């Protein structure tokens, strides 16, 4: 028998670029569920309000938006009641930004654990993305409750349509985009720590480049720096996902079109693929640099 065939583990300085061991990741699926459980259990331990914060946060955010953007700035909402409009945007966006913030610090915040024991590092960001789903789910329930209240009150122009069936796909896309960006950022910040400072405020600015506090229809036909502002907005891969959700759930504005949604999807696939490659390369040596 060939000697090399018998070895089950071979540790080399650098693996081939495409050596993501999915089988190994599958073997550690129990760890993934346990990490998810840990994240959920420990998030609001020793707080008085506990999971109520899941609901309080978006409510307060929406209230601020109503005052600042709806009230002071007077930005329209495509005829949709302000709370519904803002809530749909913030829930989706917060899921994205929470995932991104969590996954982008994977290496730095888990260095103690990673320095002591080996397991596929990809488990950690994956568990972050999954455990954030709980919070997202609760916030979605809040959205539905508010929606129902408006529906009962009558005279609400918002109504869901068939595009809402895309919802599961949209959530997966949000998660995938956040994970993809997070993997990239976490890999880069192990070496050059200033990037984490850059990214942390980039994420908060990014929100304004995404139609959350204003409808996308507002920028239609506007031109900035010689380019169509609408196109620029749609190049942001989060925009098509968010817009499709808003259109499907509220019937706000118009469908962004399959083309842009496909663009987002392709962007996501490429990003995730490259992100995993970079992440995989980093995990081998990051303990020496972090």
């Amino acid at each position: 028998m060939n000697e090399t065939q018998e070895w089950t583990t071979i540790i080399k300085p650098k693996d081939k670029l495409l050596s993501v061991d999915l089988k190994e990741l599958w073997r550690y699926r129990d760890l993934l569920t346990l990490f998810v459980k840990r994240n959920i259990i420990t998030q609001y331990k020793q707080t008085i309000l506990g999971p109520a914060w899941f609901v309080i946060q978006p409510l307060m955010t929406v209230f601020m938006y109503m005052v600042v953007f709806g009230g002071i700035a007077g930005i329209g909402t495509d005829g949709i009641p302000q709370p519904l409009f803002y809530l749909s945007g913030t829930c989706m966006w917060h899921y994205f930004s929470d995932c991104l913030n969590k996954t982008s610090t994977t290496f730095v915040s888990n260095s103690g654990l990673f320095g002591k024991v080996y397991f596929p590092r990809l488990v950690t960001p994956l568990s972050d993305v999954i455990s954030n789903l709980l919070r997202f789910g609760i916030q979605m329930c809040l959205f539905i409750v508010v929606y129902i209240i408006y529906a009962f009150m009558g005279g609400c122009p918002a109504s869901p349509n068939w595009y809402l069936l895309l919802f599961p796909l949209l959530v997966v896309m949000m998660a995938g985009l956040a994970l993809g960006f997070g993997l990239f950022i976490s890999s880069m910040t192990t070496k050059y720590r200033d990037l984490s400072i850059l990214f942390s405020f980039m994420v908060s600015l990014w929100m304004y480049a995404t139609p959350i506090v204003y409808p996308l229809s507002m920028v239609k036909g506007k031109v900035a720096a010689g380019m169509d502002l609408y196109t620029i907005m749609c190049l942001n891969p989060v925009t098509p996902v968010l817009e499709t959700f808003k259109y499907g759930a509220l019937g706000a504005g118009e469908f962004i079109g399959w083309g842009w949604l496909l663009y987002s999807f392709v962007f996501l696939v490429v990003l995730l693929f490259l992100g995993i490659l970079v992440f995989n390369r980093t995990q081998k040596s990051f303990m020496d640099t972090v």
Partner: protein
Amino acid sequence: MSVSIEFNHVSKQYRLGLVSTRTLSHDLNRWWTVNVRGKEDPYLKIGSVNDRSKKADSEYVWALKDIDFKVEQGEVVGIIGRNGAGKSTLLKLLSKVTGPTTGTIKARGRIGSLLEVGTGFHPEMTGRENIYLNGAILGMTKDEISRKLDEIIDFSGCERYIDTPVKRYSSGMTVRLGFAVAAFLEPEILVVDEVLAVGDAEFQKKAIGKMQNVSQGEGRTVLFVSHNMASIQRLCQSGILLEKGFVSYAGTASETISKYLSEQVVQSEYQNPNPHANQKLVLLSASVGPKTGSLIYTSTPVQIRFTIRVNQPVGHLVVGFNLMSSFQYPLARADYNDQNGAYTLEPGEYEFLFEIPANTLSNGDYKIELDVAEKCVRNYAGEQSVLTFHVDIDEHSHANTFSENISSKMSIIRENWLVGYEKQ
């Protein structure tokens, strides 16, 4: 028997100084030379030997250099070396925490690593939840843990508190729980780093027993790092001595230990380089060692011998030594005239033998400062004649008296005053 682990010219390089200031310019330079010009990595060549005491003349250092050895299946290997010799780096490479710079490591079977006890414990979660979490981190599946849960809880001895958050545990209990999980790992290769140093005596005994089961009963390969020579001797068949990143010796466990002890900075012997000095008194030689065997245990009498030559009668002769802790704290004093009231000796050569009785010293490091002097006139034993020795904890007792570690403890007495006990 087949080879279980094989290290093939493995080296690991670290950059000195602040690792976080890793600069773009170095990275670019490396990338340029390696990928564009197709030459060797410029930073791989200049690494210097890993010697902690010397000032580095290069920015890079080899923590491990050209490590090459094989471990048979079922073998228990002790890895010995001074601090910074590369022991932990070696274990880190094997447990895939970090990658080697050059070379390959091959292994057969699952590798379970125990570089720390209770890795990933979350203080807010209960003992039971943490068993699952820790077990999964170490590579067990949920079913496996569920199957062994009762045994694990039983082994840890934390049954009463198993549904209490771990943050309410004492540090000892946390360690017990962590070790209990690890003890039920079933990898073909187990990598253990100095985890037995923690925990109380009873638990240490249990842990060592469990490790022995693991290695002897079940044919598992174990790599074990410890500073406790006694436990290395007891657990391991073979040893590897690391020195400044090289394998300086490999052989049976006891050979490796004695090799290590002989190379230590411990000075157990002194020979006067100038024995014919023209002075009233000459200290010719001195040595310290166990009465029997080669290691000093708490249960071994410690013998101190020295020879002096008296050339001229001395008015008030002093021949003795001060026993000091390794932190220079004076502990005891012994003299040749303690019992006989003598103050002087006839010219000639004399050999003195002192003996510190068994169970007097607790484990730790000690110094002996020799006194060969004419009282209030001159001491003829110089600084070079200071002897040092190390007392290891006894093989059969696991008392947790570390005089080294307990700063409040100033006595040298290792309390072993129990005469006996019987059931009434």
